[in-house]
C-alpha cells in the first residue's frame, strides 16, 4: 500500500487497530498479579530479546517479566519501576522495527552499559 501523500489514504483504512493495541489493557499491572494477555506480552518481550526463556508462557506477572520490563525501561529512557505503568505501555504499543534490541543476550543500549552504582562512590583507602 503506497500513498503519494497523506490525503490519498482512504478514510476506511483509519479504522483498523494496530497489532499490539491489546497491550493497552495491561496498563497498571504489577508483579504478583495475573492478567489475560501477559503471556502474549512475554512473547513480545522474548521476540525483542528481553526474555531468554523458551518455555510456554503463563499470564502470571512473575519475576522474569519484572526483570524484562526493567531492562526495557532502561533502554527506552523510562522510569525503572518494573511495573506496566502507562508510560511503559504507551512505548510498548508503538509500531517499531522488528530487529531485536538485545541480540543473543547482548546489547550496548542503556541496559548493557555499566553504570556507576552507589557502592562505586565509596573509595576504600588505608592511612599510613
Amino acid at each position: 500500500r503506497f500513498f503519494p501523500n497523506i490525503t490519498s489514504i482512504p478514510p476506511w483504512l483509519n479504522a483498523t487497530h494496530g497489532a499490539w493495541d491489546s497491550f493497552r489493557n495491561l496498563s497498571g499491572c504489577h508483579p504478583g498479579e495475573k492478567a489475560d494477555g501477559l503471556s502474549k506480552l512475554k512473547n513480545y518481550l522474548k521476540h525483542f530479546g528481553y526474555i531468554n526463556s523458551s518455555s510456554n508462557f503463563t499470564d502470571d506477572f512473575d519475576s522474569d517479566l519484572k526483570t524484562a520490563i526493567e531492562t526495557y525501561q532502561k533502554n527506552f529512557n523510562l522510569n525503572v519501576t518494573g511495573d506496566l505503568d502507562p508510560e511503559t505501555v504507551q512505548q510498548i504499543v508503538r509500531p517499531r522495527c522488528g530487529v531485536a534490541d538485545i541480540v543473543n543476550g547482548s546489547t550496548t543500549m542503556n541496559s548493557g552499559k555499566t553504570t556507576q552504582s552507589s557502592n562505586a562512590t565509596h573509595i576504600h583507602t588505608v592511612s599510613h
Partner: protein
Amino acid sequence: YTFFPGKPRWPQYNRDLTYAFQPENELTDVVKGVFTRAFSRWSAVTALTFTQTDSLADADLKIGFFVGDHGDGEPFDGLLGTLAHAFSPTSGRLHLDGDENWVVSSDITEATETSAVDLESVAVHEIGHLLGLGHSSVENAIMYPTIPSRTRKVELASDDILGIQELYGTNPSYNGSTSTTTPSSENEGDTVYG
C-alpha cells in the same frame, strides 16, 4: 549507538555496494527514489557507495515488501506492530511489511491518519542495520527503535554518524557537521514506528 554481536560489517574489498528491489513488488520509480535518498544519507558520511542494479541475484542489498510469513522466520503482523526488519552484514536483506500504509512523500506531518508510515524514515533506519548498526537508546537517533506518529525522521544524528564512521571511516567529502534537529512532528504524544 550499538553494533550487532561480533561487530559484523561489509569487508574492506566490498565497500561499493549494489542494491536491488524484489521484482514481484513492481515498485514505481518514485518509491525506488525514496530508497536512493535514504542510501545517500549514509554514503554522505562514510566512504561507502550505493548503486542500484536490476539484478536481484547479484545485488549486495536486496529490498522487498512482504506480507505475513515470508520465509525468513520473522513473519510480519499486519497493520502497524512490526513495520520492517533488516539483517546484519553481510546478509543484505531488507524486508518491509506490505500491509502498512506507506506514505512516499514528505508531508506526513499533516497526517491525521494514525496508521500512516513515512517510508523514507523507516528505510534510513533499516539501512543502518544492513550496514551493521544495532538499536540506540538515543531518542533523536535514526537507530532508535520507535518514532512518534506523524513524524518524518530522516536526518542522521551525531550518534548514528559516530557509529557508522566507527565501522567504515569518514567520507573525505564529509564536512563534519552533524544534525541536531529533532523529528518534525505535529503531535509527539502519539504512536508510531521505527
